[in-house]
């Protein structure tokens, strides 16, 4: 059965209220803008969103935030969207802040079948409160748990029909990690090519991780987000 889905809403049918959803991107760069917009039109609430940021004010995940569809955000830098602070202040959203490297590594661990890992990042700070501390070879570490989710929404530059992916410049960021850490993975791409057209040496995400491929209808340009 083909992984290519032309109907965005149909592709997102797997997301239910209360689900945990990974969303790729560093701000809007490398964010699956088409899938996010599709999600704003779906009747789902109480989502836990794992993403470095929650978009920008009124853009990307910021739209979903303003629709009150997000129950909890897990990320490293919510400062980029001032609406997050207002929602948090009013008790409308829960937030879990992780160091950026910890967010990335927890996703990697989740995708690799690990329960967690010990890291030096955050030791002795407020972000270590409640986390197990352990000394290994004389160095203090804290335990960070892996992150796994119901669905991942990611963006790549090109997919072949099997779902092998290549990325574009700094739009790669969290996307290859999120591709590994969810039960269902949906990717949006600029271009879909036939299997065999990507050099096996250049494939960054092998097709084993990918369930559904959609073509991007919203892209980030110098002039902002535009429909294509």
């Amino acid at each position: 059965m083909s992984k290519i889905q032309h109907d965005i809403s149909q592709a997102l049918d797997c997301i239910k209220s209360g689900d945990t959803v990974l969303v790729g991107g560093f701000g809007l760069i490398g964010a699956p803008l088409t899938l996010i917009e599709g999600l704003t039109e779906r009747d789902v609430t109480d989502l836990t969103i794992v993403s470095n940021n929650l978009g920008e004010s009124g853009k990307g995940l910021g739209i979903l935030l303003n629709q009150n569809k997000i129950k909890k955000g897990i990320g490293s830098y919510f400062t980029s969207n001032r609406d997050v602070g207002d929602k948090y202040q009013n008790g409308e959203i829960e937030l879990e802040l992780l160091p950026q490297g910890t967010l990335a590594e927890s996703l990697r661990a989740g995708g690799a079948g690990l329960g967690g890992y010990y890291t030096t990042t955050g030791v002795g700070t407020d972000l270590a409160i409640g986390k197990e501390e352990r000394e290994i070879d004389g160095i203090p570490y804290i335990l960070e748990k892996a992150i796994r989710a119901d669905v991942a929404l990611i963006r790549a530059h090109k997919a072949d029909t099997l779902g092998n992916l290549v990325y574009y410049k700094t739009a790669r960021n969290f996307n290859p990690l999120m591709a590994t850490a969810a039960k269902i993975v949906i990717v949006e791409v600029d271009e879909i090519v036939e299997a065999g057209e990507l050099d096996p040496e250049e494939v960054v995400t092998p097709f084993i991780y990918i369930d559904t491929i959609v073509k991007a209808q919203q892209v980030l340009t110098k002039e902002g987000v535009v429909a294509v």
Partner: protein
Amino acid sequence: MTVQLSKSEMQHGIAKRVALELAGPCIVNLGIGIPTLVAEYMTEDNIYLHTENGLLGVTDVADEAIDPNLVNAGKLPVGEAVGASFFNSSDSFAMIRGGHVDVAILGALQVDETGVIANWAVPGKNIMGVGGAMDLLVGAKKVFVTMSHTSKDGSSKLLKECTYPITSTRQVDMIFTELAVFKVNAGQLELVDLMPGATIEEVREKTEAAFTE
């Protein structure tokens, strides 16, 4: 200071001074704000810039060549150097935590007299972002801090103890302000340079932390 500098002149002055401390070959990660300006003053060829959103080999970019999908950690457009590479966020932070980045240059809100910094949260305000600061502090071989010497109300940002939440228990290596440059030696601040126009009296008056001269 006898000559009153604009904020921009002050920031560029600090960035220019930091650049003098960078000798190649080395890999440098630049934080947001004054650290980003350091790139303008680096003169050595074999300094490569790492940005945690997934690029080793950052350069500046001409306006006509701006690519919205090629940015630094401050989401500002950048270019790619000869020999550049792209990687995912996990690999990027493995480079940082794993001790492969030589120097991290960070901004700070406060520094204590042992060289511990606070730069991610202010008590009483929403704690909204930490980014890569904690990872850089535990992993970079050297950490340089740039900041204004005093807060808007004139109070010292070099304190006996940080009153804001610390970013790491790790002590930084050097601190650069518009008035002075300090080195951290065995958990003590040592004044190593006065900035142009600054006097030792002014530095003493505006520094709460103990330091050796």
